[in-house]
């Protein structure tokens, strides 16, 4: 008898707990529709979210979920959950290189109709290109990014115009015993692919064909390999170049070892914390390889809407608000990320926080996109593996290997290193 009573008591407690669970679930539903945004940890993004929530007037409530800091970690989490058809992700902050992959897999929704025209109006062309796959728009450009050449004006009175000029100026400084090193991204990772893609496109070469189905690696791309090797084997190259990512390059220059740095504009904001260094820290357009203006690889973030979302309308509206000119201005001023809406560059406040805005805008107008293929992750891994370490490049042989292994990667036949 006693046992039965105890059992009943336990069942009662269990039922009560279940009921409580349902109640809380209902409670959160009453506050309106929640739109879950997954984006990299951006310092002042919450302010943008709050502003959009206020504007939505209770129609939806955006919740900011922070993804890991590393790009690989961000992609892995989103891809894993999308593959499992997770409906708790609504808006995704995608790196510009992931559009094709997620679109082809059927994990993100196409932008159509008025949402599409609103995204397109006033937006710079290259960032829009990164969000387009097979003629369809799959993302709304949030911020963009291009590298510039950063130099120390106390060592270099006039910045170099060409790649070779930069190397010879740096070598001359090093020969004089001055801190004349060149720093950049030579580690076996995406940064090396960005560097190579810039060199190839600036030189008028191609890595993959237009449809992203065939590996080309033409003669111009071979010349780009030679240019990369020349940098990597120069006397002026940072000795840890083959293991340097963005921040290693930034720190090497801030610590006074280098006179030249190829890096994203965030280094400007970071340098302002060291006034002695910042007063001589200047920028110039990326040095040219072919003589014409360089086609610098574009980076940045696009918003996409998950195919498994249960509230597509609210999600698209949230995207439009999160990437509005107002939001982009806030992000540019507070977090230093370049806007994708052209008009934002001309806002008066931008001049002070963003002195290099004209150079960025000019570079953006002539920027290049990394190969557009669903197999981009594999393509990128193959390129960074084969090019690493950059000092070991043998242009013709390296190009042959690139062509073969890239083709395998595109056919999902190859083993990823």
């Amino acid at each position, binding site marked *: 008898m006693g046992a039965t009573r105890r059992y009943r008591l336990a069942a009662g407690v269990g039922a009560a707990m279940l009921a409580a669970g349902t109640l809380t679930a209902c409670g959160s539903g009453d506050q309106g529709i929640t739109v879950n945004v997954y984006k990299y940890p951006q310092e002042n993004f919450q302010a943008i979210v709050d502003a959009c929530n206020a504007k939505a007037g209770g129609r939806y409530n955006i919740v900011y979920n922070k993804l890991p800091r590393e790009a*690989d970690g961000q992609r*892995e989490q989103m*891809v*894993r959950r999308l*593959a499992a058809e997770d409906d708790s992700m609504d808006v995704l902050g995608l790196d510009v290189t992931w559009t094709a*992959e997620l679109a*082809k*897999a*059927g994990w993100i929704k196409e932008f159509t109709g008025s949402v599409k025209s609103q995204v397109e109006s006033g937006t710079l062309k290259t960032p829009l290109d990164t969000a387009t796959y097979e003629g369809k728009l799959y993302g709304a450009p949030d911020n963009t990014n291009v590298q510039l050449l950063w130099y120390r004006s106390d060592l270099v009175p006039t910045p170099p115009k060409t790649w070779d000029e930069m190397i010879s100026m740096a070598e001359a400084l090093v020969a004089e015993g001055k801190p004349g090193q060149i720093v950049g991204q030579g*580690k*076996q*990772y995406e940064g090396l692919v960005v560097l190579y893609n810039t060199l190839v496109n600036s030189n008028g070469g191609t890595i993959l064909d237009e449809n992203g189905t065939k590996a080309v690696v033409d003669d111009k791309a071979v010349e780009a390999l030679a240019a990369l090797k020349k940098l990597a084997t120069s006397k002026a190259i940072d*000795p*840890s170049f*083959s*293991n340097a990512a963005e921040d290693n390059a930034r*720190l*090497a220059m801030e*610590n006074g070892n280098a006179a030249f740095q190829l890096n994203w504009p965030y280094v400007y904001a970071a340098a302002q914390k060291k006034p002695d260094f910042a007063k001589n820290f200047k920028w110039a357009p990326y040095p040219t390889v072919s003589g014409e203006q360089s086609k610098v690889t574009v980076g940045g973030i696009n918003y996409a809407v998950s195919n498994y979302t249960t509230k597509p309308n609210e999600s698209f509206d949230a995207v439009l608000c999160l990437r509005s000119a107002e939001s982009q201005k806030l992000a540019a001023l507070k977090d230093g990320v370049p806007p994708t809406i052209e008009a934002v560059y001309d806002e008066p406040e931008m001049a002070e926080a963003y002195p290099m805005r004209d150079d960025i805008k000019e570079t953006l107008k002539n920027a290049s996109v990394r190969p557009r293929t*669903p*197999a981009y*992750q*594999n393509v990128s*891994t193959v390129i960074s*593996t084969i090019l*690493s*370490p950059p000092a070991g490049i043998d242009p013709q042989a390296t190009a042959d290997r690139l062509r073969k292994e890239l083709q395998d990667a595109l056919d*999902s*036949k*190859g*083993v*990823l*290193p």
Partner: protein
Amino acid sequence: MSQTTTEDTATGTGASPAPVAARKKVALSEGKKAERRLGWLLCAPAALTMIAVTGWPILYSLLLSMQRFDLKFPDRTEWIWFDNYVTVLSSPYWWNAVWVTVVLTVVTVAIELVLGMSLALIMHRALVGRGIVRTTTLIPYGIVTVVAAFSWRFAWTPGTGYLAEALGGDPVLTEKVPALIVVSIAEIWKTTPFMALLLMAGLALVPDDLLKAAAMDGASGWQRFIKITVPIMKPAILVALLFRTLDAFRIFDNLFVLTAGSQGTSSVSMLTYNNLIKGLNLGIGSTMSVLIFIMVAIIAFVFIKLFGTAAPGSDDGGKR
């Protein structure tokens, strides 16, 4: 069978009536049958869960390994049978990873065995501060591998690390052989205590009287160690080696943090992760998992064969 037994009992040879009776009871008693059925029913949930969580995934990865299955190209999924195995087994990346893994395993386990044995002897023989000796020895094993790996990485990074500075500021983690040496050091530092712990348990089996008797007979310290301690400890050594070899063969975390597999330092696990999780190529990735499974099975088999009777599970293990 049952007929002959009944015949035997009927003829009354009286060879072995007791077992026959027992067998008959099993065959006849309803109570026993019900008990047995209950036993099966009670086991069933656990057995089914095991099948669901281990059996099915193993089978599923076998099935995946025979398909072209790439999440990036969902419309290109098809059965290709052993093509994935051909691709993987003819890939230089795979064989490089196999060699890296084998070398790492052999080198680290060998050094760990020697160091672990010395540590175990010290811990076993320590007269003063035994607790402190044991605690300090075990500290590396108590630190989370990833955390330890990060401190190794910083220590070896020029500019931030004391070890890199001490060795002239070369970025050791950017070249294959130096990077693998650093990974080995990190592995050995981390898991030697585990080896020592297992070996110490074995040392406790060696009777002191035997060692004293041998000493009386004039055996030197080394002779006592080789002729008495090691043979008695053989099962413990086998267990320690088997555990560590299988563990070392699946090395992932240290490599992931220290080199992330760059410059050809990928182990087989690292390579599988890259293809499966990063590359979303479930076909190739599953093929690699199956191959790792086979290799691990071979290692276990070879160990059991090599050590023969001393293997765990063989009944006459204590025969010496």
